[in-house]
C-alpha cells in the first residue's frame, strides 16, 4: 500500500460540498489536522451507496484535529482533540508554513 500521506503529516480536509453519500462530516471540511494513523484501503462508500462496486479502493486515514481548530468557541482545554476517519480523496497536503 502506497499511502498518499504519512503519519504526522499536516493535511487539510477539502472544502467541497458534492451531493451524494459522503462520509466526510461537514464540521471537518476546510479544517487542518494531522495524520494519526493509516487505516488501510477500502472500497469507496460514495460509490458503494449507489450500487457501484467501489473497485478503486481508497486509502483511509485517521486524522486528528485540535478541538479548538474545529470549534473556535470550544470551552475545554487546548489539548482536547477529535479523530475522524477520512478517505484520501478528501485530503490535501498543507505546505509547511502556510496559514
Amino acid at each position: 500500500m502506497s499511502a498518499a500521506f504519512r503519519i504526522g503529516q499536516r493535511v487539510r480536509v477539502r472544502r467541497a460540498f458534492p451531493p451524494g453519500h459522503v462520509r466526510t462530516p461537514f464540521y471537518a471540511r476546510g479544517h487542518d489536522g494531522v495524520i494519526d494513523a493509516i487505516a488501510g484501503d477500502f472500497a469507496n462508500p460514495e460509490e458503494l451507496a449507489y450500487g457501484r462496486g467501489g473497485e478503486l479502493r481508497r486509502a483511509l486515514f485517521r486524522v486528528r484535529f485540535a478541538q479548538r481548530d474545529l470549534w473556535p468557541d470550544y470551552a475545554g482545554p487546548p489539548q482536547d482533540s477529535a479523530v475522524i476517519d477520512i478517505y484520501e480523496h478528501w485530503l490535501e497536503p498543507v505546505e509547511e508554513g502556510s496559514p
Partner: protein
Amino acid sequence: MSRETSAETVNIVPHVHHDHGHPHPKQPDLEDQPVRYHQLMAEAVGELLIEKGIIAADELRRTIEDIDSRNPAMGARLVARAWVDPAFKARMLEDFNAAASELGIETGAIPIRALESTPEVHHVVCCTLCSCYPRMVLGLPPDWYKARAYRSRVIREPRAVLREFGTIVPDEVEVRVHDSTADLRYMVLPMRPAGTEGLSENQLAALVTRDCMIGTAVPAAPS
C-alpha cells in the same frame, strides 16, 4: 365520570378482577403501532431475497439471532483479559479481531480497533453521521448513542456530555473524541481501576460496563 362517554377513557380497560380496582391503559399490540416506511421496505427486501433464492429464511434468522446474541459482556471479557495479560493487550491493540478470536469471539470482516485510555488521554466514541458501533463485541447500541443529541453534542462539547454521564475528566487530561465515520469500529479499552489487584479476571470483567467501552463512563473498583 362515565366510562361509556369520556373520549379519553376509550382505551382504558377496567380491571375489576384485580384487587386494586382502578383502570389501566390498554397495552398496545405490535400491530397497533404505525408501520414506518423503512420498516416496510426492510420486510419487502427480505421477502424478495428469500423468494429469489438469494438467501434462505433460515440464514436470515440465524443472522438475526447472531446479532441479538452479541452483548457488552463480550467486550468486558476482552478488557479484563487485556488488564491481566499484557501480551494479550499488545495483540488486541495490534489486531483486535484476531485477539477477540482467541477468546472465541468471532467479529466478522469489519475491523475493530481498541482505543487505550491512559492517565494522559481519555477516549470517547461516537458516530456523528449515523450509528456506527462495534456491535460484534457490544451488541446493539443504546438509543442515546443513535440520538442526534449525543451525536451532535459529544463531538462539540464532550466534557459537558461526559459530566451528564457522571464522568468528570480532569482538565490536564486530553479528551479525544473518535468519530466513526467510515470502515472501522472503535471500542475503548478503559484504565484498570486502582484497588482491583486481588480480583479475578471474571470479577474484573464485571466492573466493565457498556458505557465504559463507549467512553462515557470509567470502571470503578467495587465499594
